[in-house]
C-alpha cells in the first residue's frame, strides 16, 4: 500500500486506481490462470491420447493403442456430431433426465420428510440404520437388486435412485434442523414477529444451504445410478445407448456417449449449480470474507 501512496504523490495526474478495482483485477487474473490450467489438463490428456494412436510407432511393432479398440479423440468428436445429427442424443438425454427428475424429486421429498421425522427419538431409532445402510452401500447393489426385481419397468430405476440418495437429503435436513438458530428465533419472538414470517425469513433461509448440499450430492449420485440402471435394464436413455454400442463393439460410439455424459454432468455441476449458489448464497460469501 505504501508504494501506491508514493506513486500518487509523485504523479498526481495519473488516474487513481481504487483498492476495490485492484482487488477485482487480482481476483480476475487469479481466476483466469486457474481456468487456464484446468483447460490445459484436458488438452494434455486429449493430446497424449491422439498421439498414442498415431502410426509412427513401427519400431514398437504398432501403436501403443489400437484404434479399433480405442478410437482417438478426433474420431470420437466426429462421431459425436454424427449421432447428434441423427437426433438420438437429445432423446436419450431427455429420457435419462426425466428419470432423474422423477426419481430424485421423490427421493428429495422422502428424504426431507424422514429428516424432519427423525427429530423425534423414536423415529430416529426407526430410521437410523436404514439411513446408514443407504449411505454406505455401493449404488451398484441397489441397481442390480432393482433390475432383478423390476426388470424393464420404470419403477426399478426410480426405486434405485430413492434408495441411494434419500439418506443424503435426510442427513442434511436433520443436521440443519438441529442447528436452527435459537438466538434469532428468540429475537424474532421478542419483537412479536409472526410465526409465518419467522419461518419464511429465519427457518427457510437457514435450512436452504443444508437442502442445497443434499441436492448437490444427491444429484451427483442420482445421475450415476440412473445411467447404471439404464445399462442393465432399460430400452432408452444414455446408459441404454452405451450398452448398445458396447454390445455392437462400436467403441467410437461408446466413447461418444461417455464423453457426452461427462460433459453434461460437468455442465450441470459447474455452471448450473454454482450459478444457483452464487445467486442465492451471496450472504455466505460475505460471512467467509470477514
Amino acid at each position, binding site marked *: 500500500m505504501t508504494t501506491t501512496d508514493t506513486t500518487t504523490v509523485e504523479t498526481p495526474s495519473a488516474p487513481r486506481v481504487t483498492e476495490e478495482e485492484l482487488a477485482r483485477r487480482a481476483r480476475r487474473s487469479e481466476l483466469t490462470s486457474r481456468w487456464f490450467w484446468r483447460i490445459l489438463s484436458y488438452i494434455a490428456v486429449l493430446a497424449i491420447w491422439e498421439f498414442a494412436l498415431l502410426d509412427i510407432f513401427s519400431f514398437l511393432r504398432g501403436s501403443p493403442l489400437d484404434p479399433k479398440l480405442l478410437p482417438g479423440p478426433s474420431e470420437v468428436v466426429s462421431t459425436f456430431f454424427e449421432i447428434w445429427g441423427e437426433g438420438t442424443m437429445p432423446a436419450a438425454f431427455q429420457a435419462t433426465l426425466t428419470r432423474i427428475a422423477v426419481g430424485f424429486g421423490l427421493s428429495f421429498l422422502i428424504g426431507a420428510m424422514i429428516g424432519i421425522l427423525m427429530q423425534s427419538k423414536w423415529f430416529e431409532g426407526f430410521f437410523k440404520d436404514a439411513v446408514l445402510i443407504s449411505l454406505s452401500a455401493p449404488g451398484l447393489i441397489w441397481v442390480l437388486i432393482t433390475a432383478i426385481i423390476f426388470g424393464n419397468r420404470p419403477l426399478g430405476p426410480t426405486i434405485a435412485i430413492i434408495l441411494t440418495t434419500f439418506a443424503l437429503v435426510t442427513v442434511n435436513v436433520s443436521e440443519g434442523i438441529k442447528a436452527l438458530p435459537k438466538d434469532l428465533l428468540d429475537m424474532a419472538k421478542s419483537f412479536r414477529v409472526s410465526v409465518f414470517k419467522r419461518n419464511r425469513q429465519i427457518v427457510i433461509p437457514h435450512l436452504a444451504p443444508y437442502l442445497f448440499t443434499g441436492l448437490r450430492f444427491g444429484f451427483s449420485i442420482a445421475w450415476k445410478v440412473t445411467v447404471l440402471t439404464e445399462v442393465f435394464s432399460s430400452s432408452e436413455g444414455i446408459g441404454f445407448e452405451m450398452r448398445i454400442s458396447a454390445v455392437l463393439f462400436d467403441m467410437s460410439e461408446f466413447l461418444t456417449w461417455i464423453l457426452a455424459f461427462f460433459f453434461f454432468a460437468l455442465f450441470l455441476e459447474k455452471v448450473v449449480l454454482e450459478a444457483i449458489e452464487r445467486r442465492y448464497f451471496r450472504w*455466505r460469501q460475505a460471512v467467509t470474507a470477514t
Partner: protein
Amino acid sequence: MAEIRIKNLHKEFGVGSDKVVALEDVNLDITGHSFVSIVGPSGCGKSTLLNILTGIETPTNGTVEITSDGHVAAPGYVFQAARLLPWRTVTDNLMFVQEDRSDDTKKRCQRYLEMVQLGDKGDKFPGELSGGMQQRVGIARAFSIEPDVLFMDEPFSHLDAITARALRRELHHMWDETKKMVVFVTHDVGEAVELSNRILVFAKGGRLEDDIQIDLPFPRDPADDEVAVAKAHVLRKFEELDLLAS
C-alpha cells in the same frame, strides 16, 4: 405510560442435579418515565429477567405484566450479541421487525441507522460489518420500532469508548424526549450511575438485593462530585453484598 409489574417471579432451568435457579422470588414494579439499570455479577439472572419480560422465556412461578396505557406494551430488545439475520442486508434486518413496509417505516429505519452512524451501510450484509457495527445495527433495530419499553442487555460493552459515549448520549436523549421506559443491564456501575434514575442490584442466585434511587439532574458528568459520590455509594453496596469478587 408503561408499567412493569413483577410478582413472586421464580425461574429455574434444568431438573434434578442440573437444576439452576436463575431468579428467586423477585418482586418489582417499574412505572412511568424510568431509566432502570440492572447490575450484578455474571450469572445472576439479568439476561434471564429480560428474556422473561420480553416473552422469550416463561416464568417457572409468579407473574410478569407489561402494559402501556392499559394495553400490552411493545418491547424493543437489544441483546448481548447483535443477533442479526446473516442472510438479510442491514436495512432488511430492520425491516424484519416492522409491522408494515410503508415508505414512512423505511424512512424511520434509515433515520435510526444514521443515528448509529451506519446510514451508508444499509445494503451490506452483517458478515461484511465489524462486530461493533453489528451491535449498532442491533441497537438501531430496537430503536426503530419506537417501543413502549426498551430493554438493553449490555448494549455498549463491545463498543469502543468513543462510540459508546456517543450512543449513551443518544440513548439518554431518546429517553428524555420520548418519555419511554428503559430497562438497562450493565456490568459498568459508572455507566449505570450516569444514565439511570434507579439501579437494581442482583446477587448470585437471582435475588434482588438492593433498589437504589438516584435523583441527580441530567446530564451527569462522571467528573462531577455528586455523580462520583453516587457511584461510590453503589460500589460500597456491592462490597457489602460481597459482589465485587465476581
